[in-house]
């Protein structure tokens, strides 16, 4: 029966090519724009590190002194050096790393190069599953001894050393030389969740070195620094400034619960020690909670998605109208089929098959339009443009959306068509 309906549908669609084309075009435009924006949403709200996102926790706390504390304010993202050093000393998590972004100028043949840098700890590399092409990351002992070591990206390795194994060579930073102990493999996190304050999307840093070393050498850090009182050196051990990011790896939910309790105890101890009299706040957010809290998907993208879905709705309304016109135009034909014994259900199904065929055709064209739309998105000068691509799931979703929306649009016209009274239709013909 289905094959017969399909045949009828194709015949009917061929009979009025202009109207069919208009319907397919309307659905395709709606599907194309919706899938373009939904793909952008899908990529931007994706999990950058799916294998570990539930085990990595961003630690935030509020240790403002009383006169800078405003109840109801959001918990600050960054920590003071004092708290970071205390947490690192306790080392209650399976792995933990404090970090900050920085920038430095390294000597190279010809022109010096400005490179983006991350100052962090030895645990950073196993925590975030960072692959190494040559050598290995520095050790916790290097952190403790403020060793003059660095890990560089494969891009910088290509630029400075032509891509060969550069482990053991030196990186000249001002008067200081750093020994290269490792070269990264391909590693880019997008969104760059471990530090969203220096561009949410983009390449990973070119140079990594121990935070202790960077502090020792007084290398300049970048990113937000918030001090609650005047200080000469915002990076000093007891500076009243929050500027360091802190991540902990906790492999089981039980450990995470224990760690959260530890943070509460830590805050309580700080309060007892007289740093502040308010209750203080401390929390550990896993990767997806953290991305959610930071609102990584830009407001513009959300707005575009709603706009596109609204547009799809209007396209569907349009399709309902056109299908209605199409089916009712065939009242005579439907009357004949009814008179020959077709049930209302049969007419209804036949009409829905026709709507589905229009929907699938619209889906195919819509996919082409979405591909075009994504090319446009990739040519936009946004920082996430390069990472937008369609995957298999979105491809399937396109057809599901096209089919579902065309069937939905077909319901009302098919219902009207099945109510055509055979006698009236035949007489008026």
């Amino acid at each position, binding site marked *: 029966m289905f094959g017969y309906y399909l045949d009828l549908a194709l015949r009917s669609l061929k009979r009025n090519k202009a*109207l069919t084309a*208009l319907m397919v075009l309307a659905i395709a435009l709606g599907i194309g724009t919706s899938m373009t924006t939904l793909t952008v949403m899908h990529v931007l709200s994706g999990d950058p590190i799916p294998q570990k996102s539930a085990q990595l926790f961003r630690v935030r706390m509020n240790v403002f002194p009383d006169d800078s504390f405003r109840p109801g304010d959001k918990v600050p993202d960054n920590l003071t050096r004092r708290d970071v050093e205390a947490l690192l000393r306790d080392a209650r998590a399976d792995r933990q790393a404090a970090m900050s972004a920085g920038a430095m100028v390294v000597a190279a043949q010809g022109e010096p*190069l*400005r490179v983006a840098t991350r100052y962090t700890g030895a645990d950073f590399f196993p925590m975030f599953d960072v692959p190494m092409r040559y050598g290995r990351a520095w050790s916790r002992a290097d952190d403790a001894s403020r060793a003059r070591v660095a890990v560089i990206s494969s891009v910088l390795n290509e630029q400075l050393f032509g891509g060969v194994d550069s482990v053991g060579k030196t990186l000249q930073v001002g008067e200081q030389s750093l020994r290269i102990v490792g070269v990264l493999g391909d590693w880019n996190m997008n969104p760059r969740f471990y530090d969203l304050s220096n561009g949410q999307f983009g390449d990973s840093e070119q140079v990594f070195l121990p935070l202790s070393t960077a502090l020792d050498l007084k290398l300049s850090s970048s990113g937000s620094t918030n001090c609650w009182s005047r200080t000469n050196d915002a990076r000093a051990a007891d500076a009243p400034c929050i500027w360091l990011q802190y991540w902990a790896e906790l492999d089981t939910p039980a450990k995470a619960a224990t760690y959260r309790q530890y943070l509460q105890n830590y805050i309580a101890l700080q309060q007892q020690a007289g740093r502040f009299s308010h209750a203080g706040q401390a929390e550990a957010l896993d990767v997806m909670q953290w991305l959610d809290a930071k609102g990584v998907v830009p407001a513009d993208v959300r*707005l575009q998605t709603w*706009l*596109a879905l609204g547009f799809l709705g*209007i396209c569907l309304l349009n399709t309902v109208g056109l299908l209605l016109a199409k089916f009712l135009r065939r009242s005579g034909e439907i009357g004949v089929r009814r008179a020959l014994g077709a049930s209302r259900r049969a007419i209804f199904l036949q009409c829905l098959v026709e709507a589905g065929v229009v929907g699938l055709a619209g889906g195919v064209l819509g996919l082409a339009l979405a591909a075009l739309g994504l090319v446009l998105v990739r040519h936009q000068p*946004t920082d996430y443009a390069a990472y937008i691509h369609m995957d298999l799931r979105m491809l399937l979703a396109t057809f599901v959306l096209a089919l579902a929306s065309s069937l939905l649009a077909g319901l009302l016209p098919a219902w009207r068509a099945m109510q055509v009274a055979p006698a009236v239709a035949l007489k008026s013909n």
Partner: protein
Amino acid sequence: MHFRHILSALGRHRIAVGLLVLEIAFSCAVVCNALFLIGSRLERMQRPTGVDEAHLVEMFIGSVTRGSADAVMAQTRTDLAALRAIPGVANASVVNQTLFGNSLNASGVSLSDEAKAPSIPVTQYMGDAQLADTLGLKLVDGQWFKPDEFITEEQLESGHSGLPVIITKALADHFFPGQSAVGKTIHAFGTNRVVGVLDRLVQPHDSGPAEYYGYAMLFPVNLPYTEGAYVIRVRDAAQRAAVLQGALRALKADGPLRLISPKYAFTLESQRDKYYRNDRAMAWMLVGVCLLLLVVTAVGIVGLTSFWVAQRRRQIGIRRAIGATRGDILRYFQTENFLIATLGIALGMVLAFGLNLLLMRHYELGRLPGYYFPVGAIVLWLLGQLAVLGPALRAAAVPPVVATRSV
């Protein structure tokens, strides 16, 4: 034209008419709000900065080896002299932060030095005595800093207090509404006396509520080049590229090994373009969606009207046979469309208002100004009339003889 006849005819197609009315209503609502969004983006992109944008270029220089503070300061003076000697350069200066740049330097500012006093974050520009002239800033009240008021960076770092400050008119109006700010005191770096009021200067990039964009302060500090950027004003806008080339050459010719690269040298105009690129992209996207939406709505009108024309061929033939002119038939369909569009637009206005409330709640967006409603209405009326013209002309072309051909 008898509306009553048209209405009773439409009454026989209630569902189709309802669909068309809904489609026009939703289109109207989306188009009104989209036009408003486009308008507010364009307005945002045209905000003035208060500096002589067309004539400014800037360059960031990285130091490779850290010299002594005195040596860096001496190098800065040498550089500035070299930059000012380049043909076509009107003035050059060091500034701690650049407009449309990534870095934003701000202090909490309040009217009292009590710790609990309400304060707002205000961005601070610091620079030498030539900065105001280089940027092309305009003073509306008070005076510029005196030469002996400029301090060094070390003095600033060591907690120098009592620095005079020049603030923008927007900030002055915020703190001292209805009175002159000159001679008043604000608390930013300790206690600061206001000596002048600028017509306008803005944050490097939007930070905080929209009205904070025009809040800025200027402090008299002689900075070394490592703490900011060189900003250069050229005499002729056409010479910007040439001056940048000359400036890179001049700085490379002298001084220690430094990071001097065209990668970190820009015209302010290109920085502005880059800063607003998302807004521009969004505005174009909205224009695109509006056009597509109108096309789809027109398609709907054409499709349904064609169906009605085909269905009523005999009735049209009969009307022609008993004396209706082609013009009568044409006007019939035009009037019918006008009625449907009017219903749709009326409903669309209500929806547009509701959509605007929704947008206001979830996005930072103001109330939809009243003049967008008639604009949306006229657009959809015109669209309806254009879309109906084809089918209506076909209807008008139906010959009277159709009336006699039956079954």
